[in-house]
């Protein structure tokens, strides 16, 4: 069943009055519960596509469907509500709130949903155990390592049981071992909660965890298939 579908998405940016086309005619479909890798060289438009799929940016042209409902032309408030309820984000730089403890960071999306304190406690506790930070919940981000921060960020993204998780280079700031653990965690928990995960990465080794790979090149979607047979070279080029 289609969770998110795009049709002929196009996006340009203006740099010094020069138009730079970032995405051209991207057709994409994300199915509920799959773990999709988005790969391609730097500047190919991965982040732009993630932003559009995460509903934090709007395309110049083309259409975007959420459960077959077209989102083009929807108000900012509508998209905000949709993100609030159904989309989780894992950022490259974690983007945790520095003045909040790990607990409060994870509970933040639940607070936005107006969830009761007891329910919040249950969710945060179980997620913290799942990502292995249950002993660090009272610590603020500044006192956590990079890997621990990303685990908090994953727990935060999953807390509201989102239908879609957008992860932009979630392992870029992590060492090799931690990166593997974090992606494995993201995939397993995504599956456990039934969330679709769209993860952009440069790291070819991480693609083996993906159910499907989407490769962008100069703003065009050039490869959309299962990971079988995809080599590291293909991912990076």
């Amino acid at each position: 069943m289609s969770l998110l579908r795009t049709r002929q998405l196009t996006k340009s940016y203006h740099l010094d009055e020069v138009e730079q086309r970032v995405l051209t005619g991207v057709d994409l479909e994300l199915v509920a519960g799959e773990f999709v890798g988005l790969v391609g060289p730097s500047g190919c438009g991965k982040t732009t596509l993630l932003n559009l799929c995460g509903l934090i940016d709007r395309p110049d042209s083309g259409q975007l469907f959420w459960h077959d409902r077209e989102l083009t032309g929807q108000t900012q408030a509508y998209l905000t509500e949709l993100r609030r309820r159904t989309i989780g984000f894992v950022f490259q730089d974690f983007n945790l709130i520095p003045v909040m403890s790990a607990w409060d960071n994870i509970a933040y999306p639940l607070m936005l949903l107006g969830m009761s304190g007891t329910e919040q406690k249950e969710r945060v506790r179980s997620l913290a155990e799942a990502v292995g930070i249950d002993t660090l919940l009272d610590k603020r981000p500044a006192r956590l390592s990079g890997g621990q921060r990303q685990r908090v960020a994953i727990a935060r993204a999953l807390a509201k049981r989102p239908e879609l998780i957008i992860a932009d280079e979630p392992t870029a700031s992590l060492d090799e071992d931690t990166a593997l653990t974090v992606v494995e965690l993201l995939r397993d928990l995504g599956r456990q909660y039934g969330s679709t995960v769209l993860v952009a990465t440069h790291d070819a080794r991480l693609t083996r965890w993906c159910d499907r790979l989407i490769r962008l090149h100069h703003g065009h979607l050039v490869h959309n298939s299962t990971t079988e047979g995809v080599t590291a070279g293909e991912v990076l080029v």
Partner: protein
Amino acid sequence: MKWLLLAWSNLGRNRRRTLATLMLTAIGVTGIMATSGFALYTYESLQEFAMRDKGHVILTHPDFYSEQEDFPLQYGLEEAASLQRTLLGDEEVRDTLATVEFSGLITNGDKSTIFLGEGVEPELFQVRGPVMQLNDGRLFGVSEDNTDAQALIGQSLANNLKVGVGDGLTLMSTTVDGALNAIDVVVRGIVSTGVPEMDSRLVMTQIEDAQRLLNSDRVTRIGVYLSDNDDADDYYRQLVEAYPELGVTAWHERAFFYKSVRNLYNRIFGVMGVVILAMVGFAIFNTASMSVMERIREIGALAAMGTRRREILRLFLMEAGLIGGLGSLVGLALAGLLSLGLMVFEVQMPPPPGQTEGYPLQVYWSLQVAWISSALVIALSVLASGFATLKGVRKPIVEALNYA
């Protein structure tokens, strides 16, 4: 509550900056409280002085304040004693004082000069309280047998005529019939009003002596003194209805000095208040602007997670409100300490223009001003922060997330 806690936590991000803004806000509130408190003290003192000087309500002939007299007491009141007895029957009335105003020449035999006289009842000083300073001799007493005509004269007049307590003087004036009359008086006391011009002309006699000099049993006015200042307006309206044939004047209508000082202070301290508020506003705007710029990426992340713009804005407004509120509390406490300090350690103010006596500096701590100044400062903080935050909150999410 969670939002408030988050706002509170955010204040700790840059403690030094938060503390500096908070202290500036506190000083602003202290400034408003101190200037307003000083103005209130001055207003109350002058109001008290004006009420004690002529009474809460003044009864005169209806034309007394509007027409010029052709001869002394032309517009005086008849049968003042009977009217006073009637007024004393009202429960609000503490006392009444009849006064005869007159003028003429005063001489020591060798030298003459102009005087401005007041014929007063001996209760005057009990009823009025301390409105002038006794430099030598005695004031009029109620229970004394004042058989000789006596006078209290201003210090400068005494110096001018080279007389002291017990010396004799002659007062000359025109009677109501147009004849020249004179009475001899003995100097009973030498007083100072604090106003040099008054001290060089002032002569006070007992009312009977003034009436004898003017050859009339009329009085210029009757001052009605009430037990409670707060009754003044109501009692004034009551007398206006009860005595349509008389001139009934409220205390503030003749309190010209009080009114001009109040007008002047309202303008001066009003401008000061605006300047202080502007300073507080700019400080908060500056702090909020810096805070927003430092947290643009975070704003982007919050928005991406589905936080509504108004919720992000509210968070920053709460932070500003907390700074404004805490600053106000500290400011009110500082103003309280200042007020107490001035009560304990007396600071003397120099004499105002045209006066010879200074007065103790006091600053009232007014709950009403505290509420108003705190509310203004908090509202201003929130408003300034709102302006500063809007720009950050309106930034597109992608742009905010990539903000360096």
